[in-house]
């Protein structure tokens, strides 16, 4: 193992989408217990620097592994299907229609209740999309198809953040 190992190798878990969050949390803490700079405080600058590199690397891997969207993006990328969100916008057509409908609904929504309803719909869509992604990656190994769903989910997350911000604004 070295600093260039994949997140999955570092955490000693199979390189697949389905993961047990509780196990990830426990692994993260176990690894930090070994590598965190605080464990080597009395051992000088070089030890601190090396420990910091490992500790940063472990945190980076954990951030990516625990977030389903980031994990899916990473899996597609290491399997030769990078997301390239800036240049490549290929997305499922039904999604494009769906998201236009949401946007219109959000623009019309004037109460917290109506916005909550949109939030519930988009959460449900995100849930279904994640299970599609799991199937495409773990069962079909079809990363090209998976990455399209990942792009769609990126849009959904941004949309969800927008809905939340609007709800916050109304709440204040």
């Amino acid at each position: 193992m070295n600093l260039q190992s994949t997140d999955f190798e570092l955490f000693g878990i199979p390189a697949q989408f389905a993961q047990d969050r509780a196990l990830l949390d426990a692994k993260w803490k176990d690894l930090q217990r070994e590598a965190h700079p605080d464990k080597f405080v009395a051992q000088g600058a070089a030890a601190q620097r090396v420990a910091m590199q490992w500790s940063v690397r472990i945190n980076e891997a954990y951030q990516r592994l625990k977030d389903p969207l980031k994990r899916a993006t990473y899996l597609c990328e290491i399997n030769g299907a990078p997301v390239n969100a800036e240049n490549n916008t290929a997305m499922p057509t039904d999604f494009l229609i769906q998201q236009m409908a949401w946007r219109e609904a959000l623009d019309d929504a004037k109460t917290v209740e109506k916005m909550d309803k949109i939030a519930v719909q988009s959460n449900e869509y995100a849930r279904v999309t994640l299970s599609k992604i799991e199937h495409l990656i773990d069962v079909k190994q079809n990363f090209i198809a998976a990455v399209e769903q990942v792009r769609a989910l990126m849009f959904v997350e941004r949309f969800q953040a927008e809905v939340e911000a609007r709800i916050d604004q109304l709440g204040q």
Partner: protein
Amino acid sequence: MALLQISEPGQTPDPHARRIAIGIDLGTTHSLVASVRSGVAECLPDDEGRVLLPSVVRYVDAEKRQIGFDALAAQVDDPSNTISSVKRLMGRGINDIGERAQLPYELIDKPGMVTLQTVAGEKSPVEISAEILATLRFRAEDTFDDDIYGAVITVPAYFDDAQRQATKDAAQLAGLSVLRLINEPTAAAIAYGLDNGSEGTYAIYDLGGGTFDISILRLTQGVFEVVTTGGDSALGGDDYDRALVEWVLAKAGVAADTLTPTDKAALQRAARFSKEALSSNISVPFSVQLAKALVNFELKAEDFETATAHLTQRTLTAVRKALRDARLTKDAIDGVVLVGGSTRMPQVRKAVTSFFGKEPLINLNPDEVVALGAAISANQLSGNNSGADLLLLDVIPLSLGIETMGGLVERIVPRNQTIPTAMAQDFTTYKDGQTALALHVLQGERDLVVDCRSLARFELRGIPPMVAGAARIRVTFTVDADGLLSVNAKEQVSGVEATIDVKPSYGLSDNEIARMLQDSFSTAQQDMQSRALAEARVDADRMLLATRSALALDADLLSPNERAEIDSMMAGVEDATKHGDAATIETATKALADGTEAFAAERMNRGIQKALSGKNIEAI
């Protein structure tokens, strides 16, 4: 210094060298020092048995100063030279200080941080805080009759980079070596967690004299994971006093602009006294003789509650935000810990209990709990207790980013990110042939540059001329375990780069600190020389010992040439300790430390790789 000894978990590098480490709670209204003695953390009392030191400094004349109770007693008589709540001024510019009208001091506008005009001249909040810290340091040295190895100092979780740096500078000025700044709520959780062996998700509600913090922590097997933190760095017990003063003035029909400095100090004192008395009474007499009027009436607890309800509400708003950031509901909280003297106010307890729907934990003294946690952490960080299973995974409290076109902030490290962390983002040039890029580093949650705190500016120069948008400049933010930031910008095609360690703009230079140190704590020349020689010998011996044991274990990492170099540097150190003075020994030790740094890094890397692989094999 690179110390080569990599110890196995549970083993102290040098079992004979027990280091005196202290935890300091540098509070707005009072401060404490604690230490772990025979395995138990306890607050150290002064020679009259008092553990609390009022955070008050009085400049009596150009030479003499009073710190603590004596200063507090003089506050009404000498308000403009008696500084209290200086913590609220740390790292703050004149525009940051909202309650200026009520402060009885003369503030001077200085870049980055205000200073105060006193009878002893101009004093910065850093110098005033250093007086308090030095008093506590002397108390600890007297208690142990020994030097202090290092200190953990607590700061509100919501302190930004400038406030943290100011606290560190004050400690340095007080002659303390800072092992770590830790957040007050986290320190409280450590004190509670280790006492109770608790597991689960906890909310730490910390209302101090000048700041409010809320932190959500997860405790599992000695790991304290800060999930989110939030709060208000300008909301505390002082504000309750002030709101009460305003309410009283309105009731008595006295205009605030007719008050003298003595009136202000007397009102402040009466308000604090009434607030404290109302913790155990339903009404108290409120009586103050002002220069132009007498204020005298019976103050009821419910009036106090009404006068301050908006402040209590503000704390709950911050609690809701912290829960939302953690994506948790109130029901997910297993326990609520109250910290800070201001949580003694009945209306605060009532509000917290009804918000969470459960009684808060209060079995540790809310005044002491932060210092106790800091002491436990200091003991751990000084290597006295490396076997104990305590690990703190903290987060950064405020987002970090850089300025982009149109005065907007692009966030690079979002708040509540676990540290240490490194995060990067790519930027490009916006003009043809552009060869330099100005970077402006900011901290805060708002989208506009003007609403965030400016931390640093630097430039990346020497970018080869390209068409607009062709350069790829990767900007990397690295935040270490202390929460301090460094920023690197590198153009990916040409490889030109620039790096800056972020120090807030007021930042005292090392020279200024050295000067202040000499001004305040001059030690007899003779003493210093013999002490320096003894210390240099100890350091040299420790370095030799560490190098020998490192070679015994991992000499295979070295080429014959590298080995020969290390052997000759070791001989140099041995020779210096026998014949040389302090400076010669230090030079030789430093040469050995520098010369073995690469070796130390290799060993460390090997050690961690082994430990991590071991973890994964164990798990299978």
